[in-house]
């Protein structure tokens, strides 16, 4: 039962990540591979404020949101004028830079040693101690994230994002400020990644840079692709599939060292297979465009 609750909590956290990434990747067509960097920044900000400055859970989460929003805004100013491949590469580079900072700034983050003894969340006097109560809290956060992102996607702003995805030049020609729209979407997406980071830190109670590497970013992107980019439930389905997959490997009784590599191999193959056979994912309507070649 505890194991099932653990799985469900992870599904909620990764669903927040996938749904938020879908706003820019699925709706705006901006393939970002630095979502784990924002996830990590949110986790570390929240953890540091709670552990070192004894701040409350709510204050630490809000601080994480602010920090990540600032980072996302600054990064977006330099990367969002780039197109396609160059945007992907630039987010790739920023992901690695942020990971390097988390891994090497010993004085602040304790580098590879990570931050431990992160206390459970306390919300208005209620200590979220047990797994079931953490699951309830995670569900609330996940539902809120889904509702907000879905509302944004269905709004006129969401239509602008999809117009950018389909034909940015046309969107500009009809008077839409596409650059501002992309920045807004990028920052909103990053904010929810930081919320997921804060939840993750307080649930696992120990964080280290390895949890927020480029592989994690590609994993979240894989969730979006598999579930279906630009769809309502696709990223959630993708999160369920990807989180549940390692558990099916456990039934094979493989040692952890082999299982870790095998999991990554399966993720990689799934990504290739989806691109070849079902580009729009399980539930998606949007498949990344076609070239004239």
């Amino acid at each position, binding site marked *: 039962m505890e194991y099932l609750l653990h799985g469900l909590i992870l599904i909620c956290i990764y669903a927040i990540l996938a749904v938020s990434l879908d706003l820019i990747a699925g709706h705006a067509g901006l393939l970002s591979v630095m979502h784990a960097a924002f996830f990590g920044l949110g986790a570390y900000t929240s953890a540091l404020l709670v552990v070192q400055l004894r701040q409350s859970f709510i204050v630490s989460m809000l601080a994480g949101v602010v920090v990540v929003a600032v980072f996302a805004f600054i990064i977006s100013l*330099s990367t969002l004028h780039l197109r396609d491949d160059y945007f992907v590469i630039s987010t790739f580079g920023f992901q690695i830079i942020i990971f390097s900072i988390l891994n090497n700034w010993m004085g602040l983050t304790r580098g590879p040693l990570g931050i431990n003894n992160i206390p459970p969340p306390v919300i208005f006097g209620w200590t979220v101690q047990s797994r079931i109560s953490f699951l309830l809290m995670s569900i609330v956060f996940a539902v809120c994230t889904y509702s907000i992102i879905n509302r944004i996607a269905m709004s006129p702003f969401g239509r602008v994002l999809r117009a950018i995805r389909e034909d940015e030049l046309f969107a500009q020609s009809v008077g839409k400020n596409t650059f501002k729209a992309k920045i807004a979407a990028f920052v909103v997406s990053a904010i929810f990644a930081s919320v997921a980071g804060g939840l993750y830190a307080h649930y696992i109670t120990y964080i280290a840079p390895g949890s927020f590497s480029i592989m994690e970013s590609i994993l979240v992107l894989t969730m979006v692709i598999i579930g279906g980019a630009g769809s309502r439930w696709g990223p959630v389905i993708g999160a369920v599939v990807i989180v549940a997959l390692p558990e099916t490997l456990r039934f094979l009784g493989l040692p952890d060292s082999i299982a870790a*590599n095998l999991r990554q191999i399966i993720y990689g193959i799934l990504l290739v297979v989806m691109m070849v056979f079902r580009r729009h994912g399980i539930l998606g309507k949007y498949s990344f465009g076609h070239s004239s070649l």
Partner: protein
Amino acid sequence: MQILLNGLVAGTSYALVAIGFAISFQVVGFFDFAFAATLTAAAYATWSASALGAPPIVVIAVGPVTAAIVGAIFEYVVYGHLRRRGSSSLVLILASLGLMIAVINLISLAFGDSPRNVEGFPYGVSVIVFTAHITPIQIGSTLIFILVTSLCLWVFYYTRWGLLIRVVADDADLSRSFGIKINQKILQATILGSAVGGLAASLSAIDTGLTPSLGFNLLLPGVVAAIAGNRKIIGVALCGIVIGIIHQLGGWWISTAWKDTILYVVLIIFLLLGSRRFFVKKLWQ
């Protein structure tokens, strides 16, 4: 002086990777992340050959041959298929990410994550050049870099094949209308590019050892050298060397722990500046 020399030698590896990447990139037209897997496969093939007791020339040659085969398989089985279906560069990038993860983890599963060294080469000896130490392996790598770069320049600017590759890179549709077999040329360029990159990975593995992340660590500096050099072989080679020097100097000035971070910051700057120039050039064409 030692730092500068170390940077020059590291830069030759980055430059070779960049040349290999640029050769393939100019015809395939997307950032192939799976190039990192190709480089890693080459490095481990080199190690395997040395573990089996092969002579040094075979140990070095196995790397580029393996890389060429792996690159050809990726192109023929995955990218060529996607391209024929009219897939955009984003689809190809996603497929390359999947291939990179799958293949590198396959190599990690097969060989483990522990660092390995290539045997059978003269380690522990060095010569002194202007007060700096350089090993025979590093001298050999530098000479091979000069030879391969010269060869690539000759192939691309003085042979018919090179002319056809440049024509396809410039305008694939027009090339096709003149009867040039695009897919064949893309495959050939991929094989050559992979072989050059694989050679760099082999030499790097022989010099400093290898882990499954070797390909990844060589790829990003190589990619940005390719962008900064505007995909011209001489420019790419020079940018690779400059990046190598910056990498070493960064570690010396600040800290070795921050060496990679400094490099990636410089890479982002090169990337943002390089892509602006690339896009300006594209507008004028």
